[in-house]
């Protein structure tokens, strides 16, 4: 086995912005070749103490469309209830063996199932018992400050109060989804900073997308 080199490669420069409080924080995630990485989750956890307590109810949605989980990656704050509607006209059987929240939603259709509460931080890998290729991730973080990169590899975190933070990067291509290295960052008033992060990703046997080919494998 090769030596794992997962995690954040480097933290580079910070930019100050002149915007008013609270500040917006921007992270740019690239792979080893310098290409932008989508579906990476960047979260900031205050170094000084726990994040502000979560109040009220929060809901998120993990849909199933065209026999795929949409979105593929769903970051939520601890205590969020996630709805699992099924937009396909066939049944799905959502399950997870992940330790933060093992659960199972046996064959169902539409919006008939109750939302699932994710009250522990960590990664929940979602699967469908009848469609091997279906794969989704719910990342539960203990902070309100998180964002997911788009196709441009940029994740923008708004309304982050100035202060000392630890920046975490998560991606399903990490060698070990449980191990996230932290990068200390400082968020200042009226400043917009871009955090550049490099990540080494590993290919996955399952892409989470429906196979385009029909028929057998040739045998």
């Amino acid at each position, binding site marked *: 086995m090769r030596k794992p080199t997962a995690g954040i490669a480097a933290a580079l420069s910070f930019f100050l912005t002149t915007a008013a409080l609270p500040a917006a924080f921007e992270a740019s995630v690239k792979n080893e070749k310098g290409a932008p990485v989508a579906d990476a989750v960047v979260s900031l956890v205050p170094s000084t103490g726990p994040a502000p307590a979560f109040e009220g109810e929060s809901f998120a949605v993990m849909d199933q469309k065209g026999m795929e989980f949409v979105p593929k990656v769903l970051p939520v704050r601890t205590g969020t209830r996630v709805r699992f509607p099924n937009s396909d006209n066939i049944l799905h059987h959502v399950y997870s*063996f992940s330790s933060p929240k093992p659960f199972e939603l046996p064959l169902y259709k539409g919006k008939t199932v109750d939302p699932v509460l994710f009250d522990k931080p960590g990664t929940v*890998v979602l699967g469908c018992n009848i469609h*091997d290729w*279906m794969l989704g991730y719910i990342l539960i973080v203990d902070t309100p400050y998180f964002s997911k990169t788009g196709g441009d590899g940029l994740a923008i975190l708004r309304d982050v109060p100035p202060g000392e933070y630890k920046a975490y990067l998560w991606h399903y291509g990490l060698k070990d989804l449980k191990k996230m290295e932290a990068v200390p960052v400082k968020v200042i008033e009226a400043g917009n900073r871009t955090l550049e992060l490099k990540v080494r990703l590993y*290919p996955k*046997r399952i892409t989470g997308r429906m196979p385009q080919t029909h028929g057998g494998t040739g*045998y």
Partner: protein
Amino acid sequence: MAARGIEVKFNSFRNRILFYFLVLVTAVQVAGFASFDVILKRNTRDRIAKDLEAGAVVFRNMLDDRTVLMTSASTMLAGDFAFKRVFFEGDHGTMISALENHRRRIGANVMLLVSLENRVVADTSRPRLRGAASEFPELIWKAGEDGAGASSIVNIGGQIYQMVIVPLLAPDLRAWICSGFLVDDALARRLKKTSLSDVIFHGSAPGGGWRGIASTFPREFADNISAVLAAAGGKPGKALSVELRNDEYMAIVVPQEEVGAGAVRVVLARSLTAELKPYLRLRAALLALFVLGLLGAVLGAVWIARSVTKPVSLLVEGARRIGRGDYEYAVKVDRTDEIGELAESFNEMTRGLLERDRIHDLLGKVVSREIAKELLGSKVELGGEEREVTILFSDLRAFTALSERLEAKQVVLMLNTYLSKMTAIIENNGGVVDKYIGDEIMAIFGAPIFHENDADMALRTALEMRHALGEVNAGFRALNLPELEMGTGINTGVVVAGNIGSSSRLNYTVIGDGVNTASRLQSLTKSAEYSAKTIVSEATLKKAREKYETRPLGAATVKGKTEQLQIYALEGFRR
């Protein structure tokens, strides 16, 4: 006959034919038999090579398919939701028993669950083994490269397995499910049923090269074939002839994509002897045909030889008989071919000889033997030559009158008795009876063959005839027949001797004065004046070398002759 220094001698034509026939037939048969053998072996070798080369590709596909099937079966199991639950449940005993259940489902020999870090989570064959590194880290690493799994040959405690690794997805990659299928002699035997070839699995030996790990052959044989193949420098996919256990095999290394440490290759082999077995019966039949053909050839040769030599023996026998004078013998060959013609010619020749012999015989009876010889020995043509001969005439006195008194039968008896006796004396003394003129005899001495003592022989003949007459008369007296009286005249002179007559009928005779004189002298014996029974001329006495008792009778005139000649009465030999 010299054949490569071997001297073969035949005292019989039959044996010679027999010998060459057999040599020829045997050579042809042996050549045919040998070439059949060579061609059969070569064709069988070629056929097996082609079969093996095609079979190797099929075998490769079969092995690949087998791997795909094993992979598919393992993958199906890996997707089992209940098993995934068990995995997450973490109860080791349950996991082992679930794995065992899966192992039975797909017919694997061993099943393991190995973590992504190459730690054995559960092993059906070694339930207590937990947390130890697996024996096939390279395969685990290879499987992890693309997360798709892998397959390879692994050695676990001396047992060789084909290990198929598939990922346990729950729903993402969590562990490796490893299904091991034994590569053993039983597998080789199973594969032999479909490939119809002996199957040998070779594993790479620690010191390089290959050693047998499973085979339809005994183990040391599987090792040997590896050495022999290496020595023969065979390439995978190309069939080779190898000598093993006193048998010839065609062997081929099944081509494979990668060969490295821990690799296994498959060798297919077919025994030439086994492949040739169906042809052994054919060969036995050919051998029987060969023997039958040889026997037929012997009989044929004997028959042909006999058909040639039998008539030849008959001809030889015929020739021998003819040599002994048996001209009546005819060779019996009832054939129309060349030998029949030869026999026919032979018989014709015999008939010719017989006819000639008869003529010879008859001639001797009609003419005297000397004349017959002369006639047969030279060309018979008219004409003559002058020869000095002595002529003898002999006549019976008053025979005509006598014959009138006797029966014809008695006359013939007396005449034949008399003439036979006299003729014998003449011929014994080298004389030739020229002709009988009734009871008169004309004899010649000196023609056709000249003798130095012709005159003496004539004189002696006359004396012997005289003596013989006494004996003849004694015989006649005993038969109460009258006695005969005989007068004889002898003269010597030059005459013309030769074939006289016409071209179609001629006589060898002598003519001339000498003849007439002799006849005249005979007539003189009738004269009482001379009282002589045998009168000879002076010419004859002059020619004679011996001495005779003679009585001069004076000069006599011979009819038709002017001069006289001295004549004598012959009394006997002078002692």
